[in-house]
């Protein structure tokens, strides 16, 4: 139990060593060192988890106070780590999936001039995330929260230093600041309400809080969560996040960062329980996000961007679960999603690696012949995310949908929204698989100009791709020639894929719905969670599951018709008819530099004026005020002396007159 501190200590140590010596160790020593640090952290997590599991249920909470951090009288904050069922579960999959991504990155980043720096950031990222989940109070979690944010900017901008993209970086910064604002206000409100910011004490005090206060706190922390976990309206940064090296995308989208919002709300479930309508809001924001993002994913051609929207959509599912107070469902889906999304991202990375860093799916096709291992593993990931039983995604998604079904009021509506999003998920993932691995023709064999139809606004995409490529042209050639013969990535990249594929297939075992003793996850996290709502009766669940299976198959089938058999013109699906419904997609596309910019110039302008304008406006107003103050500073000694004299006279008069009154 005393070993809790080791969990974050390993990556911190790795970070320090790499920062100090990384350049000297070089390639691949730095990668090995970084990986070792995370593996060590994973081992520590396992050890602590095993010890904790031996404790009797209900007393599996250990706080390890390392030192008193802010020892003010009225406001005591300790640097303490809280190990309980929830935080350890998070640690296990953060370090587990994180370690696999590290291994993968050893191969992926090979030959990069900033190899060591990359692993330095990765370790810092993991350390921040562990601090986020292990902190025993809101401030410490906030530190991790900020650390994760800072690392994500560093990693996104790793290859992304072109000035044109600086505004995108700024946007990520601003949206996250808005979320932080919610976090800080929420923390303040918690402190005012409970007189403490320690989770354990909050948990004890939470049942006595008034509904209004609980709602306010819940809304503020939900605002924070929408920032980090990329929900409406603060999701705009996530497409930027996929511009970094692929292992980073996997890390951000799967194991860390985006899950922090879900984690935070789960941590505060005792408050959410009393929060009334805030829960409905959370569920509906989640549902709308899931729908809109799934729709957006349908129209993307960049393989990583499809996955990016998919993440937003899947996170929407988790928020549906939280809003329906089905925290176990949210956690379950978080875990399975971590496995299959990491798998899919790393698989996409392997494809990109094999295709000379081409990310456009329209230039893929028939790759299953060349990349058998990548195809096989991604195939499992596809089955998992599409919700095909018995793969993991089915079980977790089904639990969320079942939980949402009986929410009052309008739970059925929530369920319908979820099902539609699930169908869309199956559709766009099948599309991704078909365009990449099947589709009948090897698109890159024909020259680019012919194979790519002219789409208005497409040049915008190219700008970004080129800028992106230009930044690292020296080490990653961006020349996909018709003669290119792709082959599978090296073993060091494939091994993590295989391991993740196994978990993506089997993670459903954590919480099978058939019998109570199969609810391992339920039983494990039960003591932490307050107000976990039950699920509908078995019969209803069976019915719902059947519908969702049929829905998933429908999505797959329709996608097959469009992208394999070409029975339906794909342009009909990806063109304005569908796209018009999702204005927000193109706002996305505009932000990330996707297609369709011209068609939605008006919307783009709105985004430009309002979002950017707000950013500039704040700075502008303060700057103008500053100019006014600056005018006083003339540079003449006499005017300075005059100012001092005036000040002195005023001060003396004030003092003397006050007295004589």
């Amino acid at each position, binding site marked *: 139990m005393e070993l809790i501190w080791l969990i974050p200590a390993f990556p911190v140590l790795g970070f320090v060593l790499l920062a100090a010596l990384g350049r000297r160790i070089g390639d691949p020593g730095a990668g090995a060192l970084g990986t070792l640090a995370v593996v060590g952290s994973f081992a520590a997590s396992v050890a602590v988890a095993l010890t904790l599991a031996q404790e009797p249920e209900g007393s599996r909470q250990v706080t390890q106070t390392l*030192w*008193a*951090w*802010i*020892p*003010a*009288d*009225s*406001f005591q904050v300790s*640097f303490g780590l809280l190990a309980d069922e929830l935080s350890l579960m998070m640690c296990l999959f953060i370090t587990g999936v994180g370690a696999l991504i590290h291994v993968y990155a050893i191969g992926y980043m090979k030959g990069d001039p900033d190899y060591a*720096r990359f692993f330095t950031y990765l370790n810092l990222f993991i350390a921040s995330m562990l601090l986020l989940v292990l902190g025993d109070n809101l*401030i410490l979690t*906030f*530190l991790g929260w*900020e650390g994760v944010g800072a690392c994500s900017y560093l990693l996104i*901008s790793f290859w992304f*230093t072109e*000035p044109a993209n*600086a505004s995108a*970086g*700024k946007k990520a910064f601003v949206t996250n600041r808005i979320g932080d604002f919610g976090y800080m206000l929420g923390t303040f409100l918690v402190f005012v309400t409970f007189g403490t910011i320690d989770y354990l004490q909050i948990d004890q005090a939470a049942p006595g809080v008034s509904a209004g206060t609980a709602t306010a706190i819940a809304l503020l922390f939900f605002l924070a969560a929408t920032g980090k976990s990329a929900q409406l309206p603060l999701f705009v940064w996530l497409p930027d996040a996929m511009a970094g090296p692929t292992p980073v995308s996997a890390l951000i989208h799967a194991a860390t960062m985006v899950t922090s919002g879900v984690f935070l709300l789960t941590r505060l479930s005792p408050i959410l329980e009393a929060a009334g309508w805030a829960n409905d809001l959370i569920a509906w924001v989640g549902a709308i996000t899931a729908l809109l993002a799934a729709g957006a994913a349908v129209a993307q051609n960049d393989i990583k961007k499809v996955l990016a929207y998919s993440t937003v959509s899947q996170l929407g599912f988790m928020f549906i679960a939280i809003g329906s107070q089905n925290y176990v469902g949210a956690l379950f889906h978080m875990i399975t999603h971590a496995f299959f999304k990491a798998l899919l991202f790393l698989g996409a990375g392997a494809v990109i690696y094999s295709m000379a860093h081409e990310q456009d799916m329209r230039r893929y096709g028939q790759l299953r012949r060349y990349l058998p291992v990548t195809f096989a593993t991604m195939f499992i990931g596809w089955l998992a995310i599409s919700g095909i039983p018995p793969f993991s995604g089915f079980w977790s998604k089904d639990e969320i949908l079942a939980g949402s079904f009986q929410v009052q009021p309008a739970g059925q509506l929530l369920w319908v929204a979820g099902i539609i999003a699930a169908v869309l998920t199956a559709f766009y993932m099948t599309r991704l698989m078909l365009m990449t691995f099947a589709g009948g023709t090897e698109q890159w064999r024909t020259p680019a100009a012919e194979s790519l139809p002219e789409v208005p606004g497409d040049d915008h995409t190219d700008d970004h791709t080129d800028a992106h490529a230009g930044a690292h042209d020296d080490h990653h050639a961006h020349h996909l020639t018709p003669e290119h013969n792709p082959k599978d990535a090296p073993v060091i990249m494939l091994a993590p894929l295989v391991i993740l594929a196994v978990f993506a297939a089997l993670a459903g075992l954590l919480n099978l719905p058939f019998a109570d003793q199969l609810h391992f996850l339920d039983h494990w996290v039960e003591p932490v969670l307050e107000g976990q709502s039950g699920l509908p009766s078995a019969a209803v669940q069976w019915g719902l599951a059947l519908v969702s299976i049929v829905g998933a198959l429908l999505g797959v089938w329709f996608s097959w018709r469009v992208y394999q058999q070409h029975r339906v013109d794909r342009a009909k699906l990806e063109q304005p008819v569908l796209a018009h419904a999702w204005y927000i997609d193109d706002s996305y596309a505009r932000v990330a530099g996707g297609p369709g910019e011209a068609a939605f110039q008006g919307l783009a302008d709105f985004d430009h004026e309002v979002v950017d304008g707000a950013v500039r406006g*704040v*700075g502008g107003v*303060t*700057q103008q*005020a*500053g*100019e*006014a*103050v*600056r005018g*006083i*500073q003339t*540079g003449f*000694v006499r*005017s*300075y*002396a005059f*100012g*001092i004299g*005036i*000040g*002195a006279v*005023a*001060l*003396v008069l*004030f*003092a*003397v007159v*006050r*007295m*004589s009154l």
Partner: protein
Amino acid sequence: MSGPSVLAAALQDVLIEPAPGFEVPSIDWAGIAPNLILMLGSILLLTVVSVLKRRVPSWFAPVWTISAAVAAGCAVVPLWQRFADTGPETLVGGAVGLDGFSLFATVVVCIAVVFVALLLADYLPRESLESPEWYVLVLLSASGAVTMASADDLIVLFVGLEILSVAAYVMTAMHRRRVTSQEAGLKYFVLGAFSSAFLLYGIALTYGATGSTNLAEIQAFLAGDVVTQNALLLGGLAFMLVGLGFKVGAVPFHSWAPDVYQGAPTPISGYMAGAVKLGAFAALLRVFVVAFGPAYRQEWQPLVAVLAVLSLVVGAFAAISQTNVKRMLAYSSINHAGFILLGVLAASAAGTESALFYLLAYTFMAAGSFAVVTVVGRTGEHRQSLEDYRGLASVRPGLALVFTVLLLSQAGVPLTVGFLAKLYVVTAAVESGFDWVAVVAMLTAVVSAFMYLRIVATMYFADAPEGAPALRIPAATGVALGLSVVGVLLLGIVPGPVSDWANEAVAQLVVAAP
């Protein structure tokens, strides 16, 4: 009779024991050892360099200075033990205090001296200004700062202030080839003399009203008697506040600060932000919180509140419109002064403790930040504008990271010492009932964060200009940068020992003369 014996007889005549009315003060040499070390270090260094025929090697003066500062810091240790055992004392006839407050301040001054010596060691050769006088003046002004921080008497305080200031005036003007440096020195001198006159007048009025210049006696007098010449006393208070407010760079007595910080040789700017501010704030705390605190708190708190709010607002808003980074830091130092004034304003043990902690924190942040400006400025210090920081992250990632940490600390981001320093002063102000000033402080922190982030964004998001001369980080400067970042982070993560120390330091501040 021969000549010598006549002289001896005359001496015998004159030099009897002192007359009965005059009491020779007993000087506890051990008790003022740190200050003596600094002062003697300065005088000996001057002697050595003026008596030795040959030029001393260039490493000699910085090494000497650092040794003196370290020795003075070490001399604090036994004194602290003594303070911990027997409580605060007053030495040299009630003129000099030996208490936790003065010892803490001494250590901070020594840290500032080490930083400036490290920076000067690289800066002076680069600018071809090498001469040992810089170090003489640094040690001399450090002695002045320590004198101010340990003064138990207004006259001693004034002497300390003059030692500190005159050395600072000269150092400001000592870059011979930069006109701005000399202009700044002259401005600083003229305005400084102007404000010293205010201080002196304030001391005179206070003496007139209370009949003493000794802080403990003033305190006792105010506690016991109804002051009939109240206007005299309040006038004295206000004038002293003007004089000391000038030294700390509080608005409206701040106008010198931007020009002087910008014009002075950059390492000296950092030193002024650390040691000179410390001396002035220590004096402010001793005079106002200790001597006038118990009885006259209500009278001066509104005045200080006004100064604090003005400093916070003007410092923050003026800083963001600057395009010169050094000048930005100058304005931000005004903003920081506003924060430290919150600690003074609180007029409580917690307030004094928080002010001390803030001063320590700011010494690290200022030394490091101005060190970065020194490096980026390159020979001649021509590159100080925000433009010159474009793309620093791609040219010198380490330097950019260091500057980022220091700026974030100044902005008050958690895990850095700046956050805790701000938290402490704001908490202290709130506990003393100055909620509205605390709110203003937090709002200005947001405003000034914009400025700090603007520098960070310039370093990270903008392109490095073509053809800029290469950037070299010399060894000693590198050490200083490393120390400042380590200090900022270490104090930010594990502040316990130091803040406990500050807590013990202010437990009991001034004792009456025996």
